[in-house]
């Protein structure tokens, strides 16, 4: 993409629009929506990270949320009073490292876990890999749940609370700050922080996709034997895919912990892994814009339902007949079925996937199956 005038204008317009977005949602939809947008962005970051593993390298990972958990607990352990309470001898006042140190640390630790998952699964593909990764995700969650004895490392199911909020340049994001006479509530500040990180994740994803590494991943996805015969070090590149994906997950986990102020194992259930995978698949595997769209849609869906279905039922029947949570699963399931039938390549498929599924007429005409096929 060349940085021509039109492109620069578009980016500028987007930046301005996103800057005002939290104020607009506050005014139009009510107070709670910026927080929902914050979560949506965490999901987008997660989905883009998983897209590296699943979309680029073709390694089906059903335990991706484990890396989010690792990142979140990294931040939670270092920046909360928990360590000081659990190990008063070792950490009399806790650790409390600044955010800019903990964030890369969380990413690196999660990346290490990515390699830990990748190394024993190098020979597995498809369904078999999915089963092992699913197990890995559950192992991490169960560990977090049970590591409160014999030494209280994770505080078990109660989780870790009183996590220090994120502060950027000595400005705490946890309270309303006033700049140039405009008051920015905490959720707005987090919105801008997450927006910046999402932009960074998008940028890195895009560079990876076009890079030599990205092309090697795609070759591995298509045919591992041939890729290896081309001179691609398939072992290292698969490990790198796991590690890169895990690092994105870990970094968003740290952001989540700082934003939420509380983490517990139940935030990292299998359903969350599946949710993130669905964002990738629904939007269009391997395509950054598609993955973002999938993330936005699936992150906002439950909130939209809650805000529409309940008042609607109240107005119609005077009481809530169907719980929005169960309706969510119903809609979600039907959406997936409809997708499989009508848009198997995703809502915004990548250029190649679109052609593969014959959506592009020109390509469909070109494809010639001669007698040999």
């Amino acid at each position, binding site marked *: 993409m060349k940085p021509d005038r039109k492109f620069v204008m578009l980016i500028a317009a987007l930046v301005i629009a996103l800057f005002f977005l939290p104020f607009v949602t506050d005014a139009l939809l009510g107070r709670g929506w910026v927080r929902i947008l914050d979560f949506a962005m965490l999901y987008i970051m997660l989905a883009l990270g998983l897209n590296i593993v699943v979309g680029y390298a073709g390694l089906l990972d059903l335990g991706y949320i484990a890396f989010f958990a690792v990142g979140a607990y990294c931040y939670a352990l270092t920046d909360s009073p928990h360590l000081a309470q659990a190990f008063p001898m070792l950490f009399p006042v806790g650790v409390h490292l600044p955010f800019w140190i903990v964030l890369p640390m969380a990413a690196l630790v999660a990346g290490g876990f990515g390699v830990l998952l990748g190394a024993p699964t190098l020979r597995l593909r498809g369904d078999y890999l999915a089963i092992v990764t699913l197990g890995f995700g559950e192992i991490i969650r169960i560990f977090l749940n049970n590591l409160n004895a014999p030494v209280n490392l994770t505080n078990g199911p109660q989780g870790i609370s009183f996590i220090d909020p994120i502060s950027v340049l000595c400005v705490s994001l946890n309270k309303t700050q006033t700049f140039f006479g405009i008051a920015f509530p905490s959720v707005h500040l987090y919105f801008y922080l997450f927006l910046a990180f999402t932009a960074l994740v998008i940028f890195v994803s895009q560079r990876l996709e076009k890079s030599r590494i990205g092309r090697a991943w795609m070759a591995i996805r298509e*045919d591992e034997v041939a890729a290896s015969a081309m*001179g691609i070090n398939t072992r290292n590149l698969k490990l790198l895919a796991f590690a890169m994906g895990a690092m994105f997950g870990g970094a968003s986990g740290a952001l989540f912990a700082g934003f939420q102020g509380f983490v517990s194992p139940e935030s990292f259930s299998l359903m969350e892994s599946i949710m993130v995978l669905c964002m990738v698949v629904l939007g269009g595997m391997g395509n950054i814009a598609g993955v973002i769209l999938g993330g936005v849609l699936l992150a906002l869906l439950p909130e939209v339902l809650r805000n529409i279905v309940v008042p609607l039922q109240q107005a119609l029947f005077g009481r809530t007949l169907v719980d929005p949570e169960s309706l969510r699963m119903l809609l979600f399931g039907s959406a997936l079925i409809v997708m499989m039938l009508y848009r198997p390549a995703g809502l915004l498929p990548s250029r190649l996937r679109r052609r593969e599924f014959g959506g592009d007429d020109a390509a469909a005409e*070109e494809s010639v199956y001669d007698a040999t096929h």
Partner: protein
Amino acid sequence: MTDSLLEISGLKVAYGGIHAIKGIDLHVASGELVALIGSNGAGKTTTLKTLAGLLHPAGGQIRYDGKSLDSVAAHRRAAMGIALVPEGRGVFARMTIEENLLMGAYSRSNNSEIATDLERMYGLFPRLGERKDQLAGTLSGGEQQMVAMARALMSRPRLLMLDEPSMGLAPLMVQKIFDTIRDIAALGMSILLVEQNARLALEVAQRGYVMESGAIMLSGAAGELLGSDAVQRAYLGG
């Protein structure tokens, strides 16, 4: 045989406890086209995969260009000039023809040379040049075979290993592919050709090996093998 580019002696390969290759000797001289023929399950593909580094030998020696390949990983062998066109072609289906060919040059770094070679491939396979932006998965079997061969050539190999290039192709296409193999060999490339279609393979090759249940049964000049009674009876239906 001091000028052999590839020299295999006593090579053994096993899958678990099953011995697929039971100690074979084989050599390919520089610029030579050697055919390795035999029926299904004889161990031909296993031999090529072992040479490419995708399988590990249980015994024996592989020497390439005078050096032992024992501890050389698969991806390093590609950089040393050993190229494999895998069985079933193994094209990158969801990548375009051009992207496939560029993957072949993965271990090379000189971009202008790669661009020149790309043009050379389109000259060798004009059909690929016409469709360079088409997804490889949407091509016919013969065209995919061309992609696989061109992709292997993009690594500027010294030894080209072809695994069953005629598999699943229409007779006309088979003829085309073998004409191309002859052309490539005429340029001085060393080729190890694995085929079930014994007649075709022996017609283009200079020498041949006949493999059966993991061992080499016969070897010799291609013309002699083509005329020999044993080969006639076993593989050529005569």
